[in-house]
């Protein structure tokens, strides 16, 4: 399969990329690693007229300790997130979740910023960074702004990024020793999760993100509320799907997804509570 024809321009800097996307209008798309976009273009589910290649912006590939949080450049590849010693120490849930994205070849190309901006609710990192209370940095023609992960995912493949904005950084709070768990239920090793759960817990504080439980990644706030008011893990897990609107597909009915979410949230909270 070959994508529909498009024009290709290569950005030399973030500012250049934003100016190019502004020039070329709404049919233009950024391409980083391309491991979400190219498969969709090959299937003609996406047909951008212009690709603005940001894949060479090496200064947007970094993982830095920024005090209370870790700052991750949007162009950082999944493999670099997975192998980061800084993340292993301070945000082990994210490093571990990154190791579950696709397969090694995919992780050599795909980027954390690309995955989040693509905003597929079945992807692992949007829900994981959502659970961790991340903040995303968007750069546009008039400067940068911060977007809370909880405000970022608007709908099916839709985010609060403006058409001329680029996701440049992901800021993830340090976990400070919180327990954590990542549960991914799929039929074959490299498949997307049928349902996935990213969770952390420190005492009565917790965060639970759900993968593939609706048109957006889902923050299971009802579960976290129950935990904070002293509910047992089993009781809190019963609320796993309370904030979700799962859809049926070839792999799972709605009922099956809801059941899986409860089971996986229970397992995730048990592991996080150790």
């Amino acid at each position, binding site marked *: *399969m070959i994508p529909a*024809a*498009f024009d*290709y321009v290569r950005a030399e800097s973030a500012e250049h990329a934003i100016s190019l996307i502004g020039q070329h209008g709404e049919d233009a798309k950024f391409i980083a690693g391309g491991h979400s976009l190219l*498969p969709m273009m090959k*299937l003609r589910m996406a047909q951008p007229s212009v690709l603005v*290649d940001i894949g060479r912006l090496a200064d947007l590939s970094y993982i830095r300790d920024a005090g209370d949080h870790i700052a991750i450049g949007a162009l950082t590849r999944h493999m670099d997130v997975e192998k980061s010693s800084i993340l292993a120490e301070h945000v082990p849930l994210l490093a571990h979740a990154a190791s579950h994205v696709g397969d090694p070849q995919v992780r050599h190309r795909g980027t954390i910023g690309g995955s989040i901006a693509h905003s597929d609710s079945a992807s692992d990192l949007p829900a994981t960074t959502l659970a961790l209370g991340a903040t995303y940095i968007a750069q546009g023609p008039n400067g940068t702004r911060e977007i809370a992960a909880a405000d970022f995912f608007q709908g099916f493949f839709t985010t609060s990024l403006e058409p001329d904005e680029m996701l440049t950084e992901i800021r993830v709070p340090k976990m400070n020793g919180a327990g954590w768990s990542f549960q991914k239920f799929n039929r074959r090793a490299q498949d997307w999760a049928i349902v996935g759960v990213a969770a952390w817990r420190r005492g009565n504080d917790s965060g639970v993100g759900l993968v593939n439980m609706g048109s957006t990644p889902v923050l299971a706030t009802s579960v976290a509320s129950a935990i904070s008011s002293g509910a047992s893990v089993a009781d809190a897990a019963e609320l796993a799907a309370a904030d979700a609107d799962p859809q049926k597909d070839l792999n799972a009915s709605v009922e099956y997804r809801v059941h899986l979410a409860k089971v996986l949230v229970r397992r995730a909270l048990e592991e996080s509570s150790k």
Partner: protein
Amino acid sequence: MQIRVTVNGTVHDSDVEPRTLLVHYVREVLGLTGTNIGCDTSSCGACSLHLNGEAVKSCTVLAVQADGAEITTIEGMAAADGTMHPMQQAFMENHALQCGYCTPGMVMAATSLLKENPNPSEEEVRIGLEGNLCRCTGYHNIVQAVLAAAGGE
């Protein structure tokens, strides 16, 4: 668009359409047909090759994205005198293939894996090859071959 890539040590200057996939460039422009196209949906790994030393699925990379890169395909693995790469030798000795279709991709993924993890456990080999599908062998002998190559290298 004009690109320059180094493939198996040889520099190539080519004019490609932006939508040209790297696997089509390698196979059809350069004539290196050892890299197979399997699923064409970044699932099966048959099209794996090394881009700057790391295994990638060339059906999901644009040739223009590889501009300036060093690429190694299965044709570049053996020595100039025909001596097989230790991974190829290990695949042969362990009968790690039947039809052979997945084999180039398996060898490229496996060598990339050992570069990152020179002494993997059996489980790490199985997880490390999760991006490569084989419909014949049941994987057992492939895993044995990779472990053998790891021990021998």
